């Protein structure tokens, strides 16, 4: 069960409308390595992962990723708020407007809709944790590219916070990998799997 707090995890301050940047930020709202992918990925993997530490880590990080997804949504909304249709069109958001108006929709920076095919959930916990370590690094790299694309100090500040969170998550998944590996060594699996 989740409880909702009506406050962003990190403040979102933008200087002015920036439609192109809003378009790029969609990479982290509905792209393959987006916050949405991360949240769904981790919260889905929780059921079969062994050890309570691993379950708790997936729950906590998965929950935080949803909070990040909300931060991205707020950023995109503020950057596109109240912009005339012709402006949206000029900035390459005409296709988005045709289908959604000014509403947000989980697609990537190029408009490709979010799909569960972006993520993996595997019973083998070693495979799953490597998926997550990779996901954190891909998200970190994406944030660096987004920082390079922006010239708004407010946006850069928020993106830097989100990027740093990925670094911390990587460390936590690394520790989880070790805990799970120890667990597997002590518990012989019925299928005779050898880790």
């Amino acid at each position, binding site marked *: 069960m989740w409880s909702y707090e009506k406050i962003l995890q*990190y403040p979102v301050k933008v200087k002015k409308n920036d439609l192109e940047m809003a378009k790029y930020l969609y990479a982290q709202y509905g792209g393959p390595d987006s916050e949405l992918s991360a949240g769904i990925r981790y919260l889905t993997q929780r059921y079969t992962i062994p050890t309570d530490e691993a379950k708790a880590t997936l729950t906590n990080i998965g929950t935080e990723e949803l909070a990040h997804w909300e931060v991205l949504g707020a950023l995109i909304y503020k950057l596109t708020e109240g912009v005339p249709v012709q402006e949206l069109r000029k900035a390459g958001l005409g296709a988005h407007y045709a289908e959604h108006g000014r509403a947000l929709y989980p697609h990537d920076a190029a408009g490709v809709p979010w799909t569960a095919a972006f993520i993996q959930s595997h019973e083998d916990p070693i495979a799953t944790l*490597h998926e997550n*370590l990779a996901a954190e690094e891909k998200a970190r790299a994406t*944030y*660096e*590219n987004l*920082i*390079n694309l922006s010239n708004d100090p407010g946006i850069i500040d928020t993106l*830097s*916070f*989100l*990027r*740093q*969170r990925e*670094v*911390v998550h*990587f*460390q936590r*998944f*690394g*520790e989880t*990998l*070790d805990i799970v*590996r120890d667990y597997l060594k002590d518990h012989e699996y019925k299928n005779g799997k050898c880790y």
Partner: protein
Amino acid sequence: MTEEEMEKIEFDIDYHPEYRLAQAYIPFQIYEEHYEPQEALKKGTLFPELYHPYRQEKY
């Protein structure tokens, strides 16, 4: 090859005894210092040793 035979092989390279090949390891963090809450929120982590800010502009 049996495990006994495996053990008899002497490697020229001095692998760290705790580590196996083809396995990834991330060292455990030991809790030492921490930032004040306000500073931690600003930086995105409570721990100085985990604070790795992005400084390098890619071309």
